[in-house]
Protein backbone atom coordinates (compact mmCIF):
# COMPACT_ATOMS: atom_id res chain seq x y z
CA UNK A 1 0.00 0.00 0.00
CA UNK A 2 1.24 3.46 -0.88
CA UNK A 3 2.22 5.96 1.78
CA UNK A 4 0.13 9.14 1.88
CA UNK A 5 1.78 11.84 -0.19
CA UNK A 6 1.73 15.61 0.05
CA UNK A 7 -1.45 15.98 -2.01
CA UNK A 8 -3.43 13.92 0.49
CA UNK A 9 -1.88 15.70 3.46
CA UNK A 10 -2.69 19.22 2.42
CA UNK A 11 -6.25 18.55 1.34
CA UNK A 12 -6.96 16.59 4.53
CA UNK A 13 -5.49 19.34 6.68
CA UNK A 14 -7.48 21.95 4.77
CA UNK A 15 -10.70 20.03 5.40
CA UNK A 16 -9.82 19.61 9.09
CA UNK A 17 -9.21 23.36 9.41
CA UNK A 18 -12.63 23.96 7.88
CA UNK A 19 -14.18 21.49 10.34
CA UNK A 20 -12.51 23.14 13.33
CA UNK A 21 -13.67 26.71 12.59
CA UNK A 22 -17.28 26.29 13.84
CA UNK A 23 -16.07 24.21 16.78
CA UNK A 24 -13.79 27.01 17.95
CA UNK A 25 -16.16 29.88 17.23
CA UNK A 26 -19.20 27.96 18.54
CA UNK A 27 -21.18 29.73 15.85
CA UNK A 28 -24.36 27.87 14.86
CA UNK A 29 -24.56 29.74 11.54
CA UNK A 30 -21.05 28.71 10.56
CA UNK A 31 -21.72 25.19 11.77
CA UNK A 32 -24.78 24.88 9.53
CA UNK A 33 -22.95 26.21 6.56
CA UNK A 34 -19.87 23.99 7.08
CA UNK A 35 -22.13 20.97 7.70
CA UNK A 36 -23.67 21.50 4.29
CA UNK A 37 -20.26 21.89 2.65
CA UNK A 38 -19.03 18.68 4.29
CA UNK A 39 -22.16 16.87 3.09
CA UNK A 40 -21.59 18.13 -0.45
CA UNK A 41 -17.94 17.11 -0.32
CA UNK A 42 -18.89 13.61 0.80
CA UNK A 43 -21.45 13.27 -1.98
CA UNK A 44 -19.09 14.65 -4.63
CA UNK A 45 -16.19 12.42 -3.58
CA UNK A 46 -18.43 9.36 -3.53
CA UNK A 47 -19.75 10.05 -6.99
CA UNK A 48 -16.17 10.59 -8.11
CA UNK A 49 -15.46 6.88 -7.58
CA UNK A 50 -17.97 5.74 -10.18
CA UNK A 51 -18.06 8.86 -12.36
CA UNK A 52 -14.53 10.20 -12.12
CA UNK A 53 -12.49 7.02 -11.88
CA UNK A 54 -14.70 4.50 -13.65
CA UNK A 55 -16.35 6.82 -16.18
CA UNK A 56 -19.95 5.73 -15.55
CA UNK A 57 -22.37 8.65 -15.50
CA UNK A 58 -24.58 7.83 -12.54
CA UNK A 59 -27.24 10.45 -13.05
CA UNK A 60 -29.59 9.31 -10.32
CA UNK A 61 -26.92 8.80 -7.69
CA UNK A 62 -28.93 10.64 -5.04
CA UNK A 63 -31.04 7.48 -4.72
CA UNK A 64 -28.42 5.98 -2.38
CA UNK A 65 -28.43 9.05 -0.19
CA UNK A 66 -32.20 8.71 0.03
CA UNK A 67 -32.12 4.98 0.71
CA UNK A 68 -29.51 5.39 3.46
CA UNK A 69 -31.52 8.26 4.88
CA UNK A 70 -34.75 6.28 4.96
CA UNK A 71 -33.19 3.17 6.48
CA UNK A 72 -31.41 5.15 9.20
CA UNK A 73 -34.44 7.31 9.94
CA UNK A 74 -36.79 4.34 10.13
CA UNK A 75 -34.47 2.34 12.39
CA UNK A 76 -34.36 5.25 14.83
CA UNK A 77 -38.02 6.13 14.42
CA UNK A 78 -39.48 2.65 14.83
CA UNK A 79 -36.89 0.79 16.89
CA UNK A 80 -35.00 3.53 18.74
CA UNK A 81 -31.68 2.22 17.47
CA UNK A 82 -28.65 4.39 18.16
CA UNK A 83 -27.75 6.80 15.35
CA UNK A 84 -24.24 5.48 14.79
CA UNK A 85 -25.41 1.90 14.43
CA UNK A 86 -28.40 2.97 12.35
CA UNK A 87 -26.38 5.09 9.92
CA UNK A 88 -23.86 2.30 9.35
CA UNK A 89 -26.70 -0.10 8.61
CA UNK A 90 -28.19 2.57 6.32
CA UNK A 91 -24.91 2.92 4.45
CA UNK A 92 -24.42 -0.82 4.12
CA UNK A 93 -27.98 -1.23 2.94
CA UNK A 94 -27.48 1.41 0.24
CA UNK A 95 -24.23 -0.29 -0.77
CA UNK A 96 -25.93 -3.68 -0.95
CA UNK A 97 -28.71 -2.29 -3.14
CA UNK A 98 -26.13 -0.65 -5.38
CA UNK A 99 -24.18 -3.89 -5.67
CA UNK A 100 -27.18 -5.95 -6.68
CA UNK A 101 -28.62 -3.32 -9.01
CA UNK A 102 -25.14 -2.84 -10.41
CA UNK A 103 -25.06 -6.48 -11.53
CA UNK A 104 -27.80 -5.55 -13.96
CA UNK A 105 -27.47 -1.88 -14.89
CA UNK A 106 -23.68 -1.75 -15.13
CA UNK A 107 -24.00 -3.82 -18.28
CA UNK A 108 -25.37 -0.69 -19.90
CA UNK A 109 -22.95 1.84 -21.25
CA UNK A 110 -22.88 5.57 -21.80
CA UNK A 111 -26.19 7.35 -22.01
CA UNK A 112 -28.15 4.11 -21.51
CA UNK A 113 -26.62 3.72 -18.07
CA UNK A 114 -27.36 7.36 -17.27
CA UNK A 115 -31.04 6.96 -18.19
CA UNK A 116 -31.32 3.72 -16.24
CA UNK A 117 -30.01 5.42 -13.10
CA UNK A 118 -32.56 8.20 -13.51
CA UNK A 119 -35.20 5.47 -13.85
CA UNK A 120 -34.00 3.73 -10.69
CA UNK A 121 -34.17 6.96 -8.70
CA UNK A 122 -37.64 7.82 -9.95
CA UNK A 123 -38.93 4.27 -9.42
CA UNK A 124 -37.65 4.19 -5.84
CA UNK A 125 -39.08 7.64 -5.16
CA UNK A 126 -42.47 6.60 -6.52
CA UNK A 127 -42.35 3.40 -4.50
CA UNK A 128 -41.54 5.18 -1.23
CA UNK A 129 -44.35 7.62 -2.00
CA UNK A 130 -46.68 4.63 -1.80
CA UNK A 131 -45.23 2.91 1.24
CA UNK A 132 -47.51 4.13 3.98
CA UNK A 133 -45.59 2.11 6.56
CA UNK A 134 -42.71 4.59 6.24
CA UNK A 135 -44.89 7.66 5.89
CA UNK A 136 -45.72 7.60 2.18
CA UNK A 137 -45.63 10.96 0.45
CA UNK A 138 -45.88 12.89 3.75
CA UNK A 139 -42.76 11.28 5.12
CA UNK A 140 -41.77 10.81 8.74
CA UNK A 141 -41.20 13.36 11.52
CA UNK A 142 -39.20 12.80 14.67
CA UNK A 143 -40.74 13.59 17.99
CA UNK A 144 -38.35 16.03 19.70
CA UNK A 145 -37.92 13.41 22.45
CA UNK A 146 -35.87 11.30 20.06
CA UNK A 147 -32.99 13.67 20.68
CA UNK A 148 -33.12 13.15 24.46
CA UNK A 149 -31.08 10.00 24.04
CA UNK A 150 -28.31 12.20 22.64
CA UNK A 151 -28.44 14.84 25.37
CA UNK A 152 -31.02 17.10 23.76
CA UNK A 153 -31.46 18.63 20.33
CA UNK A 154 -28.43 20.94 20.53
CA UNK A 155 -26.06 18.09 21.40
CA UNK A 156 -27.63 15.90 18.74
CA UNK A 157 -26.86 18.54 16.13
CA UNK A 158 -23.24 18.73 17.25
CA UNK A 159 -23.03 14.94 17.18
CA UNK A 160 -24.30 14.99 13.59
CA UNK A 161 -21.68 17.58 12.79
CA UNK A 162 -18.84 15.47 14.19
CA UNK A 163 -20.09 12.34 12.46
CA UNK A 164 -20.26 14.15 9.14
CA UNK A 165 -16.72 15.42 9.76
CA UNK A 166 -15.46 11.92 10.39
CA UNK A 167 -17.28 10.67 7.31
CA UNK A 168 -15.76 13.23 4.95
CA UNK A 169 -12.24 12.49 6.20
CA UNK A 170 -12.77 8.75 5.67
CA UNK A 171 -14.30 9.32 2.23
CA UNK A 172 -11.38 11.53 1.28
CA UNK A 173 -8.76 9.01 2.36
CA UNK A 174 -10.60 6.14 0.65
CA UNK A 175 -10.75 8.20 -2.55
CA UNK A 176 -7.02 8.80 -2.46
CA UNK A 177 -6.19 5.16 -1.79
CA UNK A 178 -8.44 4.02 -4.61
CA UNK A 179 -6.74 6.39 -7.01
CA UNK A 180 -3.29 5.19 -5.95
CA UNK A 181 -4.07 1.48 -5.97
CA UNK A 182 -4.14 -1.30 -8.50
CA UNK A 183 -7.92 -1.26 -8.10
CA UNK A 184 -7.94 2.40 -9.14
CA UNK A 185 -5.69 1.73 -12.12
CA UNK A 186 -8.14 -0.95 -13.24
CA UNK A 187 -11.07 1.46 -12.84
CA UNK A 188 -9.33 4.12 -14.87
CA UNK A 189 -8.56 1.59 -17.58
CA UNK A 190 -12.30 0.86 -17.71
CA UNK A 191 -13.03 4.59 -17.95
CA UNK A 192 -10.67 5.05 -20.86
CA UNK A 193 -11.68 1.99 -22.88
CA UNK A 194 -13.67 -0.83 -21.34
CA UNK A 195 -13.06 -3.24 -24.23
CA UNK A 196 -9.33 -2.70 -24.01
CA UNK A 197 -9.43 -3.07 -20.23
CA UNK A 198 -11.05 -6.50 -20.28
CA UNK A 199 -8.56 -7.73 -22.89
CA UNK A 200 -5.75 -6.45 -20.69
CA UNK A 201 -7.06 -8.71 -17.94
CA UNK A 202 -9.21 -6.38 -15.84
CA UNK A 203 -12.21 -8.19 -14.34
CA UNK A 204 -14.38 -5.30 -15.47
CA UNK A 205 -17.63 -6.61 -14.08
CA UNK A 206 -16.27 -7.13 -10.59
CA UNK A 207 -14.41 -3.83 -10.57
CA UNK A 208 -17.39 -1.82 -11.76
CA UNK A 209 -19.68 -3.43 -9.17
CA UNK A 210 -17.21 -2.74 -6.37
CA UNK A 211 -16.76 0.85 -7.46
CA UNK A 212 -20.50 1.37 -7.68
CA UNK A 213 -20.99 -0.19 -4.28
CA UNK A 214 -18.37 2.02 -2.64
CA UNK A 215 -19.78 5.09 -4.30
CA UNK A 216 -23.17 4.27 -2.73
CA UNK A 217 -21.87 3.47 0.76
CA UNK A 218 -20.81 6.97 1.81
CA UNK A 219 -23.87 8.80 0.45
CA UNK A 220 -25.99 6.24 2.32
CA UNK A 221 -24.31 7.11 5.62
CA UNK A 222 -24.41 10.82 4.81
CA UNK A 223 -28.14 10.61 4.14
CA UNK A 224 -28.61 8.94 7.52
CA UNK A 225 -26.78 11.73 9.34
CA UNK A 226 -28.46 14.50 7.38
CA UNK A 227 -32.02 13.34 7.91
CA UNK A 228 -31.40 12.52 11.57
CA UNK A 229 -30.30 16.11 12.08
CA UNK A 230 -33.13 17.37 9.89
CA UNK A 231 -35.73 15.58 12.02
CA UNK A 232 -37.88 14.85 8.98
CA UNK A 233 -37.59 12.81 5.81
CA UNK A 234 -39.86 12.77 2.78
CA UNK A 235 -39.50 11.33 -0.73
CA UNK A 236 -39.21 14.71 -2.42
CA UNK A 237 -36.20 15.63 -0.30
CA UNK A 238 -34.57 12.25 -0.19
CA UNK A 239 -34.70 11.46 -3.91
CA UNK A 240 -34.47 14.92 -5.44
CA UNK A 241 -33.08 14.45 -8.96
CA UNK A 242 -31.69 17.99 -9.01
CA UNK A 243 -29.41 17.07 -6.08
CA UNK A 244 -27.99 14.29 -8.25
CA UNK A 245 -27.12 16.79 -10.88
CA UNK A 246 -25.64 19.13 -8.29
CA UNK A 247 -23.33 16.27 -7.30
CA UNK A 248 -22.19 15.84 -10.88
CA UNK A 249 -21.74 19.58 -11.17
CA UNK A 250 -19.49 19.69 -8.12
CA UNK A 251 -17.31 16.87 -9.41
CA UNK A 252 -17.08 18.51 -12.81
CA UNK A 253 -16.39 21.97 -11.38
CA UNK A 254 -13.47 20.74 -9.33
CA UNK A 255 -12.10 18.29 -11.86
CA UNK A 256 -13.29 14.75 -12.15
CA UNK A 257 -11.04 11.81 -11.55
CA UNK A 258 -8.93 13.86 -9.14
CA UNK A 259 -9.05 13.66 -5.33
CA UNK A 260 -8.79 17.35 -4.58
CA UNK A 261 -11.19 18.36 -7.36
CA UNK A 262 -14.52 17.20 -5.88
CA UNK A 263 -13.56 18.68 -2.48
CA UNK A 264 -12.83 22.03 -4.03
CA UNK A 265 -15.81 21.78 -6.35
CA UNK A 266 -18.17 21.21 -3.43
CA UNK A 267 -16.75 24.17 -1.53
CA UNK A 268 -16.93 26.53 -4.51
CA UNK A 269 -20.41 25.33 -5.43
CA UNK A 270 -21.81 25.89 -1.95
CA UNK A 271 -20.24 29.37 -1.85
CA UNK A 272 -21.60 30.39 -5.27
CA UNK A 273 -25.02 29.10 -4.34
CA UNK A 274 -24.91 30.97 -1.03
CA UNK A 275 -23.89 34.21 -2.70
CA UNK A 276 -26.59 33.94 -5.34
CA UNK A 277 -29.24 33.30 -2.72
CA UNK A 278 -28.17 36.21 -0.51
CA UNK A 279 -27.92 38.82 -3.25
CA UNK A 280 -31.38 40.38 -3.75
CA UNK A 281 -30.71 40.97 -7.43
CA UNK A 282 -29.76 37.37 -8.15
CA UNK A 283 -31.96 35.67 -5.60
CA UNK A 284 -34.89 35.16 -7.93
CA UNK A 285 -32.73 34.33 -10.88
CA UNK A 286 -30.30 32.01 -9.12
CA UNK A 287 -31.47 28.93 -11.00
CA UNK A 288 -31.02 30.63 -14.36
CA UNK A 289 -27.59 31.91 -13.36
CA UNK A 290 -26.50 28.43 -12.20
CA UNK A 291 -27.52 27.25 -15.66
CA UNK A 292 -25.31 29.80 -17.37
CA UNK A 293 -22.36 29.07 -15.07
CA UNK A 294 -22.74 25.33 -15.61
CA UNK A 295 -22.85 25.77 -19.38
CA UNK A 296 -19.73 27.94 -19.35
CA UNK A 297 -17.85 25.31 -17.38
CA UNK A 298 -18.99 22.46 -19.61
CA UNK A 299 -18.03 24.37 -22.73
CA UNK A 300 -14.82 26.04 -21.71
CA UNK A 301 -13.37 24.25 -18.70
CA UNK A 302 -14.44 20.60 -19.03
CA UNK A 303 -11.56 19.33 -16.93
CA UNK A 304 -12.58 21.52 -13.98
CA UNK A 305 -10.54 23.84 -11.79
CA UNK A 306 -7.99 21.25 -10.69
CA UNK A 307 -7.75 19.74 -14.15
CA UNK A 308 -7.18 23.18 -15.61
CA UNK A 309 -4.41 24.02 -13.14
CA UNK A 310 -2.78 20.62 -13.68
CA UNK A 311 -2.72 21.18 -17.41
CA UNK A 312 -1.34 24.71 -17.17
CA UNK A 313 1.24 24.37 -14.42
CA UNK A 314 3.07 21.07 -14.74
CA UNK A 315 5.34 21.82 -11.79
CA UNK A 316 2.67 21.61 -9.12
CA UNK A 317 0.91 18.66 -10.75
CA UNK A 318 2.09 16.13 -8.22
CA UNK A 319 0.87 18.24 -5.31
CA UNK A 320 -2.71 18.21 -6.51
CA UNK A 321 -3.78 14.72 -7.36
Amino acid sequence: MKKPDISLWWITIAVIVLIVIPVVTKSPILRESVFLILLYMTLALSLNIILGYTGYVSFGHIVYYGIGGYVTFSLIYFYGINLIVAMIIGGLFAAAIAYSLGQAILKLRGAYFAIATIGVNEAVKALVNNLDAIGGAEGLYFNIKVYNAYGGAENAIWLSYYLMSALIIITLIVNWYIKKSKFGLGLMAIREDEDAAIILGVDTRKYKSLAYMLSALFPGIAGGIFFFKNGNIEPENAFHLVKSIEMIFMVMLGGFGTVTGPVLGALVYERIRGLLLINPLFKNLHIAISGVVLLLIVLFMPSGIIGYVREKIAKIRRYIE
Partner: protein
Amino acid sequence: MIDVWVDSIIGGLLLGLVYGLAAIGLNLIWGVMKVINLSHGAFMALGMFVIYLLFTAFGIFPYFGLVIVIGLGLVLGMLTYFVALHRVIDAPELSTLLATFSVSLFIIGVGTFVFTTIPYAIDISLGSISFGNITILGTKVATGLISIAFTAILYVFLYKTRLGKAIRAVSMNRVAAELMGVNTTFILALSFGIGIALAMSAGALIATIFPFTILSGGVYELKSFVICVLGGLGSPLGALVGGIVLGMIENVVTLQIPTSYVPVIEFSILVLILLLKPSGLLGGKV
Protein backbone atom coordinates in the same frame (compact mmCIF):
# COMPACT_ATOMS: atom_id res chain seq x y z
CA MET B 1 -69.02 -0.86 -16.66
CA ILE B 2 -67.86 -1.53 -20.20
CA ASP B 3 -68.38 2.17 -20.90
CA VAL B 4 -65.78 3.07 -18.31
CA TRP B 5 -63.28 0.83 -20.06
CA VAL B 6 -64.01 2.16 -23.52
CA ASP B 7 -63.84 5.68 -22.16
CA SER B 8 -60.45 5.00 -20.58
CA ILE B 9 -59.06 3.30 -23.63
CA ILE B 10 -60.02 6.15 -25.93
CA GLY B 11 -58.75 8.69 -23.40
CA GLY B 12 -55.50 6.77 -23.06
CA LEU B 13 -55.06 6.55 -26.81
CA LEU B 14 -55.54 10.28 -27.33
CA LEU B 15 -53.24 11.17 -24.45
CA GLY B 16 -50.68 8.65 -25.66
CA LEU B 17 -50.54 10.31 -29.06
CA VAL B 18 -49.50 13.61 -27.48
CA TYR B 19 -46.94 11.89 -25.28
CA GLY B 20 -45.67 10.17 -28.39
CA LEU B 21 -45.26 13.50 -30.17
CA ALA B 22 -43.05 14.83 -27.36
CA ALA B 23 -41.05 11.61 -27.31
CA ILE B 24 -40.52 11.67 -31.07
CA GLY B 25 -38.66 14.94 -30.61
CA LEU B 26 -36.46 13.40 -27.94
CA ASN B 27 -35.90 10.37 -30.09
CA LEU B 28 -35.00 12.31 -33.21
CA ILE B 29 -32.37 14.22 -31.23
CA TRP B 30 -30.98 10.99 -29.80
CA GLY B 31 -31.04 9.19 -33.13
CA VAL B 32 -29.28 11.89 -35.08
CA MET B 33 -26.99 13.46 -32.50
CA LYS B 34 -26.58 10.77 -29.82
CA VAL B 35 -27.55 13.42 -27.28
CA ILE B 36 -29.98 12.83 -24.41
CA ASN B 37 -31.77 16.14 -24.35
CA LEU B 38 -32.31 17.05 -20.71
CA SER B 39 -33.83 20.38 -21.75
CA HIS B 40 -36.75 18.64 -23.42
CA GLY B 41 -39.10 19.16 -20.49
CA ALA B 42 -38.14 22.79 -20.11
CA PHE B 43 -38.91 23.42 -23.77
CA MET B 44 -42.25 21.65 -23.35
CA ALA B 45 -43.05 24.01 -20.49
CA LEU B 46 -41.97 26.89 -22.68
CA GLY B 47 -44.37 25.70 -25.37
CA MET B 48 -47.17 25.68 -22.78
CA PHE B 49 -46.53 29.27 -21.80
CA VAL B 50 -46.05 30.52 -25.35
CA ILE B 51 -49.42 29.13 -26.43
CA TYR B 52 -50.96 30.55 -23.26
CA LEU B 53 -49.57 34.04 -23.90
CA LEU B 54 -50.56 33.95 -27.56
CA PHE B 55 -54.07 33.12 -26.48
CA THR B 56 -54.49 35.44 -23.51
CA ALA B 57 -52.47 38.44 -24.75
CA PHE B 58 -53.12 38.33 -28.50
CA GLY B 59 -56.28 36.27 -28.67
CA ILE B 60 -54.72 33.78 -31.06
CA PHE B 61 -56.68 30.54 -30.89
CA PRO B 62 -54.30 27.78 -29.65
CA TYR B 63 -54.52 25.53 -32.71
CA PHE B 64 -53.46 28.42 -34.94
CA GLY B 65 -50.88 29.47 -32.40
CA LEU B 66 -49.22 26.09 -32.92
CA VAL B 67 -47.72 27.35 -36.17
CA ILE B 68 -45.96 30.11 -34.29
CA VAL B 69 -44.86 27.66 -31.61
CA ILE B 70 -43.29 25.39 -34.21
CA GLY B 71 -41.46 28.26 -35.89
CA LEU B 72 -40.22 29.53 -32.56
CA GLY B 73 -39.16 26.01 -31.57
CA LEU B 74 -37.11 25.60 -34.74
CA VAL B 75 -35.33 28.90 -34.19
CA LEU B 76 -34.72 28.37 -30.46
CA GLY B 77 -33.61 24.80 -31.02
CA MET B 78 -31.07 25.74 -33.67
CA LEU B 79 -29.87 28.63 -31.54
CA THR B 80 -29.47 26.29 -28.56
CA TYR B 81 -27.51 23.89 -30.71
CA PHE B 82 -24.97 26.52 -31.71
CA VAL B 83 -24.70 28.08 -28.26
CA ALA B 84 -24.71 25.04 -26.02
CA LEU B 85 -24.04 21.89 -28.02
CA HIS B 86 -21.88 22.46 -31.06
CA ARG B 87 -18.68 22.77 -29.05
CA VAL B 88 -19.22 19.53 -27.14
CA ILE B 89 -21.03 17.41 -29.74
CA ASP B 90 -18.10 14.98 -29.96
CA ALA B 91 -17.25 15.05 -26.25
CA PRO B 92 -18.26 12.20 -23.90
CA GLU B 93 -21.98 11.99 -23.13
CA LEU B 94 -21.52 13.65 -19.74
CA SER B 95 -20.78 16.96 -21.47
CA THR B 96 -23.90 16.94 -23.62
CA LEU B 97 -26.05 15.78 -20.71
CA LEU B 98 -24.84 18.67 -18.60
CA ALA B 99 -24.98 21.17 -21.46
CA THR B 100 -28.64 20.42 -22.17
CA PHE B 101 -29.37 20.36 -18.45
CA SER B 102 -27.88 23.81 -18.07
CA VAL B 103 -30.18 25.06 -20.83
CA SER B 104 -33.06 23.56 -18.88
CA LEU B 105 -31.95 25.36 -15.70
CA PHE B 106 -31.82 28.62 -17.62
CA ILE B 107 -35.31 28.28 -19.07
CA ILE B 108 -36.85 27.09 -15.81
CA GLY B 109 -35.00 29.78 -13.87
CA VAL B 110 -36.19 32.63 -16.05
CA GLY B 111 -39.63 31.04 -16.31
CA THR B 112 -39.96 30.81 -12.54
CA PHE B 113 -38.91 34.44 -12.25
CA VAL B 114 -41.56 35.57 -14.75
CA PHE B 115 -44.45 33.19 -14.12
CA THR B 116 -43.64 31.87 -10.60
CA THR B 117 -44.64 28.25 -10.07
CA ILE B 118 -48.40 28.72 -9.74
CA PRO B 119 -50.64 26.73 -12.10
CA TYR B 120 -52.04 28.21 -15.30
CA ALA B 121 -54.75 26.86 -17.61
CA ILE B 122 -56.06 27.64 -21.06
CA ASP B 123 -59.80 27.96 -21.04
CA ILE B 124 -61.12 26.82 -24.40
CA SER B 125 -63.83 24.44 -25.39
CA LEU B 126 -64.51 22.51 -28.55
CA GLY B 127 -67.62 20.92 -27.13
CA SER B 128 -67.65 17.16 -26.82
CA ILE B 129 -68.44 14.06 -28.76
CA SER B 130 -70.93 11.63 -27.29
CA PHE B 131 -72.08 8.19 -28.19
CA GLY B 132 -74.04 6.16 -25.72
CA ASN B 133 -72.77 6.94 -22.25
CA ILE B 134 -69.34 7.88 -23.51
CA THR B 135 -68.35 11.52 -23.75
CA ILE B 136 -65.02 12.68 -25.08
CA LEU B 137 -63.87 16.27 -24.86
CA GLY B 138 -63.32 17.94 -28.24
CA THR B 139 -59.98 19.35 -27.12
CA LYS B 140 -58.69 15.85 -26.43
CA VAL B 141 -59.78 14.65 -29.84
CA ALA B 142 -58.14 17.67 -31.45
CA THR B 143 -54.81 17.09 -29.69
CA GLY B 144 -54.83 13.44 -30.69
CA LEU B 145 -55.56 14.22 -34.33
CA ILE B 146 -53.01 17.02 -34.51
CA SER B 147 -50.39 14.72 -33.00
CA ILE B 148 -51.07 12.12 -35.68
CA ALA B 149 -50.89 14.79 -38.36
CA PHE B 150 -47.55 16.10 -37.08
CA THR B 151 -46.12 12.61 -36.92
CA ALA B 152 -47.24 11.92 -40.48
CA ILE B 153 -45.72 15.18 -41.71
CA LEU B 154 -42.47 14.34 -39.98
CA TYR B 155 -42.44 10.93 -41.63
CA VAL B 156 -43.00 12.35 -45.08
CA PHE B 157 -40.29 14.91 -44.40
CA LEU B 158 -37.76 12.32 -43.21
CA TYR B 159 -38.41 9.79 -45.96
CA LYS B 160 -39.49 11.80 -49.00
CA THR B 161 -37.50 15.03 -48.97
CA ARG B 162 -33.86 15.64 -49.71
CA LEU B 163 -33.31 17.36 -46.39
CA GLY B 164 -35.01 14.55 -44.51
CA LYS B 165 -32.85 11.98 -46.23
CA ALA B 166 -29.79 13.99 -45.25
CA ILE B 167 -30.95 13.84 -41.62
CA ARG B 168 -31.32 10.09 -41.83
CA ALA B 169 -27.93 9.77 -43.48
CA VAL B 170 -26.31 11.73 -40.64
CA SER B 171 -28.08 9.58 -38.07
CA MET B 172 -26.74 6.41 -39.70
CA ASN B 173 -23.17 7.52 -40.17
CA ARG B 174 -22.12 11.08 -39.64
CA VAL B 175 -18.61 10.76 -41.04
CA ALA B 176 -19.82 9.06 -44.21
CA ALA B 177 -22.54 11.68 -44.67
CA GLU B 178 -19.97 14.43 -44.29
CA LEU B 179 -17.81 12.76 -46.96
CA MET B 180 -20.81 12.58 -49.28
CA GLY B 181 -21.08 16.34 -49.09
CA VAL B 182 -23.78 16.73 -46.44
CA ASN B 183 -23.34 19.85 -44.29
CA THR B 184 -23.52 17.91 -41.06
CA THR B 185 -23.33 20.93 -38.77
CA PHE B 186 -26.45 22.36 -40.36
CA ILE B 187 -28.18 18.99 -40.24
CA LEU B 188 -27.39 18.53 -36.55
CA ALA B 189 -28.65 22.02 -35.77
CA LEU B 190 -31.78 21.43 -37.84
CA SER B 191 -32.48 18.11 -36.15
CA PHE B 192 -32.18 19.71 -32.75
CA GLY B 193 -34.47 22.49 -33.98
CA ILE B 194 -37.08 19.99 -35.17
CA GLY B 195 -36.80 18.05 -31.92
CA ILE B 196 -37.38 21.21 -29.90
CA ALA B 197 -40.25 22.30 -32.16
CA LEU B 198 -41.91 18.93 -31.49
CA ALA B 199 -41.33 19.27 -27.76
CA MET B 200 -42.81 22.76 -27.70
CA SER B 201 -45.82 21.84 -29.78
CA ALA B 202 -46.48 18.78 -27.61
CA GLY B 203 -46.27 21.07 -24.59
CA ALA B 204 -48.66 23.51 -26.24
CA LEU B 205 -51.15 20.72 -26.99
CA ILE B 206 -50.98 19.39 -23.45
CA ALA B 207 -51.65 22.92 -22.19
CA THR B 208 -55.01 22.86 -23.99
CA ILE B 209 -56.20 19.88 -21.96
CA PHE B 210 -54.42 20.04 -18.58
CA PRO B 211 -53.43 22.84 -16.21
CA PHE B 212 -49.68 23.46 -16.09
CA THR B 213 -46.84 25.20 -14.24
CA ILE B 214 -43.36 26.11 -15.36
CA LEU B 215 -42.18 22.91 -13.68
CA SER B 216 -44.67 20.64 -15.47
CA GLY B 217 -42.19 19.87 -18.23
CA GLY B 218 -40.08 17.76 -15.87
CA VAL B 219 -42.82 15.17 -15.45
CA TYR B 220 -43.43 14.93 -19.20
CA GLU B 221 -39.72 14.74 -19.90
CA LEU B 222 -39.41 11.70 -17.66
CA LYS B 223 -42.43 10.19 -19.40
CA SER B 224 -40.72 10.83 -22.72
CA PHE B 225 -37.70 8.87 -21.54
CA VAL B 226 -39.88 5.94 -20.64
CA ILE B 227 -41.64 6.15 -24.02
CA CYS B 228 -38.40 6.35 -25.99
CA VAL B 229 -36.96 3.38 -24.18
CA LEU B 230 -40.21 1.46 -24.66
CA GLY B 231 -40.31 2.10 -28.38
CA GLY B 232 -36.56 1.92 -28.88
CA LEU B 233 -34.18 4.85 -28.63
CA GLY B 234 -33.83 6.41 -32.06
CA SER B 235 -37.06 5.08 -33.56
CA PRO B 236 -39.77 7.73 -34.22
CA LEU B 237 -42.51 5.21 -34.95
CA GLY B 238 -41.52 3.34 -31.80
CA ALA B 239 -41.97 6.55 -29.85
CA LEU B 240 -45.55 6.86 -31.05
CA VAL B 241 -46.28 3.26 -30.07
CA GLY B 242 -44.52 3.77 -26.74
CA GLY B 243 -46.59 6.89 -26.17
CA ILE B 244 -49.81 5.01 -26.73
CA VAL B 245 -48.68 2.22 -24.39
CA LEU B 246 -47.92 4.79 -21.70
CA GLY B 247 -51.18 6.64 -22.24
CA MET B 248 -53.02 3.33 -21.87
CA ILE B 249 -51.15 2.47 -18.70
CA GLU B 250 -52.09 5.81 -17.19
CA ASN B 251 -55.74 5.68 -18.13
CA VAL B 252 -56.59 2.00 -18.07
CA VAL B 253 -54.39 0.54 -15.34
CA THR B 254 -55.60 3.20 -12.93
CA LEU B 255 -59.06 1.64 -13.11
CA GLN B 256 -57.58 -1.22 -11.11
CA ILE B 257 -54.78 0.25 -8.98
CA PRO B 258 -54.19 3.62 -7.28
CA THR B 259 -52.87 6.39 -9.53
CA SER B 260 -49.90 6.92 -7.26
CA TYR B 261 -48.50 3.56 -8.35
CA VAL B 262 -48.34 4.60 -12.00
CA PRO B 263 -44.83 6.14 -11.74
CA VAL B 264 -43.58 2.98 -10.01
CA ILE B 265 -44.81 0.94 -12.98
CA GLU B 266 -43.52 3.40 -15.55
CA PHE B 267 -39.99 3.61 -14.19
CA SER B 268 -39.77 -0.09 -13.50
CA ILE B 269 -40.68 -0.62 -17.15
CA LEU B 270 -37.96 1.86 -18.12
CA VAL B 271 -35.25 0.00 -16.23
CA LEU B 272 -36.48 -3.45 -17.24
CA ILE B 273 -36.67 -2.65 -20.95
CA LEU B 274 -33.20 -1.13 -20.87
CA LEU B 275 -31.89 -4.30 -19.31
CA LEU B 276 -33.83 -6.90 -21.26
CA LYS B 277 -34.38 -5.35 -24.67
CA PRO B 278 -32.34 -2.14 -25.00
CA SER B 279 -33.39 -1.75 -28.64
CA GLY B 280 -36.97 -1.22 -27.46
CA LEU B 281 -40.10 -3.18 -28.19
CA LEU B 282 -39.89 -2.41 -31.89
CA GLY B 283 -36.11 -2.09 -32.28
CA GLY B 284 -34.84 -0.26 -35.32
CA LYS B 285 -33.46 3.16 -36.09
CA VAL B 286 -34.50 6.49 -37.65
